[in-house]
């Protein structure tokens, strides 16, 4: 069943239930009327958070970028303007090219997180910045212990030890890995 827009005959793509003084009423709008009513539509239905909004906010809060930082991804031709319009990166290399701008965007989209601590492809083992990962895991372990999340702390401890020490012996001494009670 296709709901039509409240204001025209186009199919509605934005649906909202508005609750006012305990009474719920539904609003159904097509993309054009939604924009006219001030709804900011996600650039893609896959994103629960609007990357376009975040990018625009990031651009506005940054000081005027000097000419030399206006870049195009050499692999796919994506520019920052494209990125803002579409809300999607163009290719894996874009993440390297636009790393500074993106780390802020990513942090906002991912609730402050900006470093991957999960699984990695077997082939990428050598790419992992082991020292950074271990430092990050150690920090999380300290936080888990101090907030008494012992199960989580145990898992972090396992991950830390699975990262191994082969080739990283010089780093081992500099890390302060807390012990569990």
């Amino acid at each position, binding site marked *: *069943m296709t*709901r039509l827009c409240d204001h025209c005959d186009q199919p509605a*793509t*934005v*649906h909202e*239930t508005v*609750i006012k003084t*305990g009474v719920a009423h*539904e609003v159904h709008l097509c993309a054009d009327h939604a924009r006219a009513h001030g709804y900011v539509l*996600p650039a*893609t*239905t*896959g*994103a*629960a*958070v609007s*990357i376009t909004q975040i990018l625009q906010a990031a651009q506005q809060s940054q000081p005027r970028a000097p000419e030399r930082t206006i870049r195009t991804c050499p*692999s*796919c*031709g*994506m520019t920052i303007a494209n990125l803002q319009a*579409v*809300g*999607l*990166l*163009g*290719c*894996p290399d874009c*993440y*390297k090219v636009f790393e500074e701008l*993106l780390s802020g*965007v*990513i942090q906002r*989209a*991912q*609730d*402050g*997180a*900006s*470093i*991957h*601590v*999960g*699984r*990695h*492809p*077997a*082939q*990428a083992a050598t*790419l*992992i*910045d082991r020292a*950074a990962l271990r430092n990050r895991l150690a920090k999380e372990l300290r936080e888990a212990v101090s907030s008494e999340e012992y*199960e*989580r702390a145990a*898992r*972090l401890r396992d*991950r830390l030890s699975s990262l191994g020490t082969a080739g990283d012996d010089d780093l081992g001494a500099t890390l302060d890995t807390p012990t569990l009670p």
Partner: protein
Amino acid sequence: MKAIDRSVFYDSDTPLGDVVLSSRVRLARNITGYPFVNRAAPDQLLEVMHRVQSSQLGSVFEHGTRWVNLQSSDVSDRGMLFERNLISKPFSEGTHPRCVALSADGCASIMVNEEDHLRAQIYAGGFKLYALVESMTQLDRSLERSLEFAFHPRFGYLTACPTNLGTGIRMSVMLHLPALRILDELEKMRRAAKELKLAVRGLHGEGSDAHAELFQISNQITLGRSEEDLLEEFAGVIVPRFVEYERQARQRMLETDALETTDRAHRALGVLRSARILTLEAAFKYLSRLRVGVALGIIDSVAMSTVNRLLLEVQPAHLARIRSIPASAADDDRAARATHVRATLDA
């Protein structure tokens, strides 16, 4: 596509099955050496399809894989896949080269060239997140043997949208929340979900209406936590908490309005057993009320799995397939829907 009638789809004999209708785990991956889907040329997209089709899919697909080319598949196939939440609406309606791999039991799919090169999904009736994540991990490892995934040491697995970065894993459950709606506590639920960084959507994803009081909740954060931590938080803490909210609301409903609650469930069963006309909206409404009745033990003549099955079979593409007619002709076949529901409940 033959109508798959596997009980695993409707299985509700799991803990939390009174509130959790189904569970789903989704994985997003891209292959190195190609632009993301939004920027790739058609021949590149065809190459990606070819690469994925030649790779090993592993044990999740061990009983057979069916590849459906979306550019050439018919409307009814696409309709059924969409109703089972195995493909998304944009994927179903797109025009670029794309395809989907379906497992023999109809519970796993890999969309190729949706927003990312690969979007794998595994689905199960009831609350089964732990098992699904394990299966997904196996699938990931298997695919990795033949495909090189785009990965960044800092940002993890790379995706077209930064909201899927890192682990690329999204877990979701379909929750039946009629009591929260009746007690007008859905707003509270949405706020709690927002605070916990969860996305809340209706039956068919982003922007859809809340049919049959069914809501999908899923994790929004995919970066900065390990797969195990994400799973433990979502499946071990968050979902049980939401189930508890609904269960308590149902108890309150029973305590304050026992007669009304009982009447509502029986009345719903009455309509479903005797109506000659059933719109999709009406079917959802009464099935939702029946489901509460079954969950609370008010109705014992109907099994939960039957209700779960009907929630799927009343939808247009499924209904058309059951009647062996083209989906377009069955667009709003209210009489056929009513007949099917009566027949199912009488069986």
